[in-house]
C-alpha cells in the first residue's frame, strides 16, 4: 500500500524515489525529505548493537493526517523510506517490515551488480519491478 518509496544514500541524497502517480507528487518528495530528520534522530538514538535487524527497521517515523511514513536504515546508512496512505486499512507492522526486507534484498542485488556504482541513482529493472510491486499492491 505504499504510495511512495524512496532510497536515500548515506549523504542524504536520493538514490531512488518513486511514487504512485498522482498529482502533487512533490508532496511525497517533501515528506520523504522531512522524514530524514526523524531518521537521523532515530539513528543517533539507537546506540546499541547496530547489527540487530530490529534496529534496522525504524518503524513509524511520524504519522500525518493522510499518510504514515516508515523508515529503515541499513548498516551502511542507506535509508529506505516508505510512505503509505493511511486511509486504507493500516498495514500491519510486519507487513511493513517485509516490504523493507524485500527492498533491502533488491537493493543488495543492485549493489552486487558490478556495473552499478554506489552513489549513483539506481537504474535497475529488477529493482524497479520490486518497487512497482509494492506501489501497486496498494490502490
Amino acid at each position, binding site marked *: 500500500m505504499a504510495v511512495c518509496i524512496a532510497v536515500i544514500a548515506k549523504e542524504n541524497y536520493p538514490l531512488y524515489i518513486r511514487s504512485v502517480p498522482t498529482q502533487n507528487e512533490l508532496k511525497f518528495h517533501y515528506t520523504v525529505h522531512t522524514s530524514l530528520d526523524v531518521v537521523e534522530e532515530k539513528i543517533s538514538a539507537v546506540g546499541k548493537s547496530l547489527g*540487530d*535487524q*530490529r534496529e*534496522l527497521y525504524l518503524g513509524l517515523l511520524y504519522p500525518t493526517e493522510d499518510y504514515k511514513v516508515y523508515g529503515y536504515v541499513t548498516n551502511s546508512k542507506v535509508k529506505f523510506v516508505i510512505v503509505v496512505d493511511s486511509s486504507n486499512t493500516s498495514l500491519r507492522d510486519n507487513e511493513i*517490515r517485509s516490504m523493507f526486507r524485500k527492498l533491502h534484498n533488491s537493493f543488495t542485488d543492485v549493489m552486487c551488480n558490478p*556495473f552499478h556504482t554506489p552513489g549513483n541513482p539506481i537504474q535497475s529493472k529488477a529493482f524497479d519491478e520490486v518497487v512497482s510491486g509494492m506501489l501497486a499492491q496498494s490502490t
Partner: protein
Amino acid sequence: MESLTLSDVEQKYYSDLFVYCDTDNTKKVASYGRVLDLFRAAQLPSEVVIQITELCGATRLGHFGRSQFYIALKLIAIAQSGLPLRVESLNSVKDLPLPRFVVGKNEAEARHVALYQDPDSQGLYPASAAALIPRPPGRGHPNKKVPPSASAHPLHEAVQPTAPSVETQQAEPTSPVVSPHQSPPSSPPSWRKHKRQHSGGNADRQPVAAPTGVVWTQFREQQTAPVSGDGLWSSHSPPLPGQESWVSFTADTPPSSTVPGAHPSSVQESTTIRTTMAPAAAAATTTEVQRQSSGYDDPWKITDEQRQYYINQFKTIQPDLTGFIPGSAAKEFFTKSKLPILELSHIWELSDFDKDGALTLDEFCAAFHLVVARKNGYDLPEKLPESLMPKLIDLDDSAEVPEPTADVGFSASPAEVTPNKSPSMPSLNQAWPEMNQSNEQWETFSERSSSSQTLTQFDSNIAPADPDTAIVHPVPIRMTPSKIHMQEMELKRTSSDHNHPTSPILAKPPEVSEEVKLPVPATMKFVPANAVGDGYSSSDSFTSDQEPVARQRSQSGASPEALKVVAPPPPPPRPHPSHSRSSSLDMNRNFAAASAAGQPQPAAIAFPPAVPPRPLPTQSSVPHAGQRAEAEGATGAGAPLTTTSPQQIPQQPNFADFSHFQAFAASEQPSSLPEVDKHSDPGQGDKSSDGAGPLRTVKSDGQADERTTTAGHSTKGSSGPLAPPPKPIRRRLKSEDELRPEDEQHGPQKSNIIAAAMATQPSIPRSVGKDKKAIQASIRRNKETNTVLARLNSELQQQLKDLLEERISLEVQLEQLRPFSHL
C-alpha cells in the same frame, strides 16, 4: 594517389561495385553509406577499413569518388590477401584476387556473390545476382571449404529465380548494409574487442577472410536449406532466427553493425552476423564448418561454437572453468564491448542468476551471449531466456537462487524472532533452536510468498514467527499464569508432540514451579534462579501460546496480542479459547500427575497455584475468577487445585464464583498451591488473571494473606479482564517469598490486585536462601514485565491513534457523501 591500374576483371568488378554504391546515380561519387557497408562486408578489421579509406583519399576528399572507390577496393583486396596496405602495392601486387565482400544473406549477398563469383560472366550483380553465387572457393581460397563451391551452386540455382528481384535484393542487402552504418559504434567496438582478444589472431583474420567467404557461403547454403529452400535471397526474413544469436564477438567485421532491431531485418543481420561469425568462428573456434543454424526456433540458444568461444574467453579471465569470475573482472571485460553501462547493468542482472556478484561459466556464457545479441541489435529480454539459464548447475542454481534470496530475506526474520526470544528465554532457547530453524524455513516460505501473514500462522509451539508476537515476545513473562499456560501448552502438545512442549517445560520444571508457584508439593521447591530463567522461557512459550489464543479470543486484534505479551502467561488454552479454565483442567491433569508421580515436573506443569498472570483483556473474567480460586486454593496443597479447576472451567460463571473461591482458598490455602496453579491456568488467557496473580501471591505467602489477596482478587476478578495477568504470582512453587516479591513487582496493572498482593506479601514468610534468587528472578521478571507493559501501552496508544485517524477520515468521507445525498 597513385594511378591505379586494374585488370579488366578488376575494372569490371569495381565498376559494378561502384554502381552498386552509387545510389544517387551520380556516376561520380559512391554513396558513402553503401561504401561503408561494402567495406564492412569485406570483413576486414575496422582499422583496416579506416586505413583503406585514408589511403584511397576518401578521407581527404570527404567522399568516395570513383577513383577513390577503386583504390579502396583494390586495397581491400590487398588486405584480404593478407598483404600490408601500402599505396605502392596498389599497382605492384599482381594477381590480386578480387576483393571479397560478405553480405548478409539476402540479396545483398546474392549480389556480392554474384560480384564475386563471376568476374567472367558479367554477372552483374544487378542482373545476375541470382545467377551468381558467392563462390569464394573459386576465389582461390582453396583450403577452405571446397565443398562449398559445390554447395554454392545449388544456392546459385536458388538464387537465379530471384534474379528479377535483384533490385529488391539489392535494396535489402542495403538495409543490413546500411544499418551497420548507422550503428557503427557497436560494431567496431565489438570487433575491436575481439581484436584485442585475438590480437594474435588478427593476422589470421585477414587470411581467414578468404576462407570466411567460403565459410560464409557454406553458411548460407545451409541456411538456405533449412530455410525451406527458399530462394534465400528473397526471403531474408525468416529464417535464421537461430543464427541470429550466433554473433561472435570474434567477428572481424562489425557484423553486429547490422542492427535494425526488427527481427526480420535482424534476420538479415543475423545472416550477416552469421557470416561474420563464420569467419570468426573459423578463426576462433576453428570450426569452419558451417554452423547450421542451430536452434532455429530459439533465438537465444547458444551454439556449440559460440559456447566454445565463450568458454575460451572465460578461460582468459579465469582459468578454472568451475570457478567464478569476480564482478570487477567481468565488468572490465564487458565494458570492452562498448555497450552502454545501463545495458551492461541489465545484462548483468539477467545473467547473474544466483546474485552472488560473480559469474560462473554458464552465467558468463549467458552474459556474453546477451552482449553479442545486443550488439547485433537484439533487444535485451526482460527475463533471462530459458536457453541461457545456467545449465551447469541448473538445478542447484534454481534451488539455490530462491534459497539465498529467501534466506537473505529471511535471515532477518529468524533474527527478529530469535532476539525476541533470547532475552526472554535463555533457557527456552534449547527448545527454540529447533523451532527457530523451522521458523526460519517457515518464514522463508512465507517470505517467498510475500505474505507476512504466514508468519502469524506459523504457530509452532511458540508462534515465534508471529510478527505480532514479535513485539510481545521479548517478554519473559514469567508469571504464573504463563506457567499455567505452559503446562497447558504442554498438555496440548503432549497430545500432539510430547517432546516439544514438554521439553522446555520439563527442562524447567523448577522454573515453572517457581513461576507458577504451583503448590505441587514435591515440586514446589525448585526455583533456583535458573529455573526462573527457564521459567521465563517457558512462560514465553506460553505467552506465545497465549497470543494466538488470545487472538482468537480477543476482539481487538492488536490489543490482545499486545496484552498477550504483557500478560504472559495465562495459558490460554488454545484448544479451549473459551476456557481459561481448561488450563486448569490441564493443570488438574498435571497436577494430579504431579502429585501422583511426585515429580517436580508434572507438578510444575500442574501449575502451581496458577495465579493467572494478569488476565488478558480479552480473557474472560471467569477464568480470572477461576484463577483466583485457584490462587486461593493454591495456598493449600495441590489437591485443592483439582477441585478448583473444574470450577474454573466455565469461564464466565466462575467469575461469580470468586466468593466461593475465596472462601475456598481461604480454607484451602495450605493446599492451595496446586489450586492456585489451576487458577492461574484458567486465568492465563484471562484477564482476570490479575486476580490470579494476587491469588498466587496469597498462596505463596500465607494462607491468610492469600485469602486476603484472594478476596481482593475476587473483586479484582471482575476488573481482571482489563489488567494483564499479574505476572509473578506464579511462583508459589518456589517459595512464597519469591512469590511475594514477584507479586509485588509484577503488580499487574490492576493496582488493586497489586495492592492485595502487596498486602499478602508482607505476611508471607520468606525463606532466605532460595528466596533471594527467586526474588531476584522475580525482580527481573517484573522489570521485564514492566517493559513489556510499557511497550504494550505505547502500542495501544498508537493503535488508538490510528483508529482515531481512521475514524476521522471515515467521518470526512461521510461528510463528503452527505452533501450529495442532499443534492
